[in-house]
């Protein structure tokens, strides 16, 4: 492998410290560009180790109501791919170590132009991509070009990914593996911790990559439980729901928006640390 990406360095560092990573998801531009940038900049200080930045899309087919609504809030506020990449550039001017993974759906990238997108993402300081609707069967679309450009391509493994299919999913996956803890959409039912730990073990028999677990993790307690058996805990819906709860009656950000997100992330980070120490 070529020179390590920020994602690889971060997971290696945390492994040495003996704790799991807290991976936080926010939607770029939710509830507006400036507030979203302020949240993004506050995340590392609040305890986020890796940041997933959602590229909003009108039709997020694998997402539950919380992230759907967050995408629409961002789009209504005028977010687009150019602004999302600019947000990463502005973040990078102040933070050169926290990994940023862009997460979303393929169409906005396809329309931006794959080569053009990879160039601009790389220049902005993006470290990896998660594109929900690109299974390994479509690897030539974006995965291979992204790897060639030096970006990590992080794939989702799910409870339906059996031992026969797992090697196909892991081929060309880099950075980390995102294990979807439930067969469902984001923000759905809570994962069963013992099953998750078992599934992480199964994936680890097939790969040396770190395994982060997400979908349905909402509380510090759940995060602690997951952190005990995985290399990372992903929280998304709970964070964007906190953004929603902080908004004023007019749907606009208030002085509580950034602080209520950082308070939740602080809490989750404590949970991850507590859970990791038990491992």
């Amino acid at each position, binding site marked *: 492998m070529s020179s390590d990406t920020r994602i690889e360095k971060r997971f290696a560092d945390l492994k040495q410290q003996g704790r799991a990573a807290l991976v936080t998801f926010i939607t770029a531009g939710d509830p507006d560009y400036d507030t979203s940038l302020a949240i993004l900049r506050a995340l590392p200080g609040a305890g986020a180790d890796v940041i997933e930045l959602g590229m909003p899309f009108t039709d997020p087919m694998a997402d539950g109501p919380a992230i759907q609504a967050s995408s629409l809030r961002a789009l209504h506020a005028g977010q687009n791919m150019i602004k999302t990449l600019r947000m990463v550039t502005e973040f990078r001017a102040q933070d050169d170590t926290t990994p940023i993974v862009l997460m979303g759906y393929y*169409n906005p990238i396809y329309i*931006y132009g794959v080569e053009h997108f990879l160039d601009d993402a790389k220049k902005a300081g993006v470290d990896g991509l998660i594109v929900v609707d*690109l299974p390994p069967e479509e690897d030539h679309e974006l995965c291979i070009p992204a790897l060639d450009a030096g970006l990590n391509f992080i794939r989702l493994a799910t409870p339906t990914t059996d031992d026969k299919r797992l090697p196909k999913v892991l081929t060309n996956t880099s950075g980390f593996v995102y294990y979807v803890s439930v067969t469902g959409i984001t923000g759905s039912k809570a994962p069963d911790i013992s099953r998750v730990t078992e599934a992480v073990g199964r994936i680890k028999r097939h790969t040396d990559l770190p395994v982060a677990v997400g979908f349905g993790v909402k509380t510090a307690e759940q995060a602690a439980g997951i952190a005990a058996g995985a290399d990372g805990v992903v929280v998304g819906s709970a964070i964007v729901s906190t953004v929603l709860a902080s908004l004023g009656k007019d749907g606009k950000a208030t002085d509580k928006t950034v602080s209520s997100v950082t308070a939740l992330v602080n809490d989750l980070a404590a949970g991850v640390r507590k859970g990791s120490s038990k491992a």
Partner: protein
Amino acid sequence: MTSPAPNSFRTGPDDTGHFGIFGGRFVAETLMPNILELEEAYATARKDPSYAAELDDFLEHYVGRPSPLYFAERLTEHLGGAKIYMKRDELNHTGAHKINNVMGQILLARRMGKSRIIAETGAGQHGVATATACARFGLECIVYMGATDVERQAPNVFRMKLLGAEVVPVTSGRSTLKDAMNEALRDWVSNVENTFYCIGTVAGPHPYPAMVRDFQSIIGEETKRQMQAREGRLPDSLVAAIGGGSNAMGLFHPFLDDKSVEIYGVEAAGKGVTTHEHAASITGGRPGVLHGNRTYLLMDDDGQIEEAHSISAGLDYPGIGPEHSWLHDVGRVNYISATDDEALEAFKLCCKLEGIIPALEPSHALAKVIELASKKPKDHLMVMNMCGRGDKDIFTVAHHLGVKL
């Protein structure tokens, strides 16, 4: 964009589900095992004569096939040009072509041991067909329908409920067909073990576009035989309306390699393709990726999907089946469009001259038949697909004509 013309237009898709650059399997990993399982189950069923025999039996005795190929004599006289035939798929059980595909998929679901059926619907025709087949086989049926459409299409909602289906109004996004399809995909992701997703058109991830086309191709196969019996030759042209494009693909596919046959697909131009209120994905869109496949879509410069508009709820979709996109790029099929107003005029004319109340979907095809037929010689044989009956649309038409019912 042009691709070189292939030797045959009927061999697609390739092994990875692509028609040229279109099609594919753009779905979340959770669904991939299901999609591969479906592909395998369908390939096995296709080779099994007992599956074909079972389907044929239901199509004959339950659906009422073959549907007639009817010579529309008064419309022909009125227009004074081509000899117009109508393929009467509106006479099928449940009143539209949708049931052809549903019977095929439900019989497949039974073979796969799936007990729970989900579907999306716009106007409600596919939902009614799915609810009907599920009632016949005692299967649980959940139909996702945009909240806006639930209101607009109350009679079909009631029909589905009478048939024992649960109708779930979808309020996410903009509450129409596209959002109903998102919600059905979300259900499928959440219930992969026991659930079969019965898609209503030639779109979605591979193998759906090819599978639904195969089930609908009976329309074109019958037409070929019937025209041979009536006129002793092939038709000269085919005209069909396109939303997702299943009735059109069903009529067109058996004729794609008959080079003498001109083929016209009619998209819904709504208030005009130069406005933002239309559903003409090929005429007014560009290639993108949505709902599991690459195809022509209505979207903005950021790749965000735009809402479609048509007087016909069944054509009100911002995409089109990927095989149509390919047939457009290789130039085999001519994609044209008809506005709401043109469709309404054609609707009225058909009622008066032929004693047939057409659905608003085929009224779009009729609108272009009116335009094309008058320019053709009298020995030109034109077939339009009367893919649905208009009973469901009388409230919409009354509203547009300013009549209170």
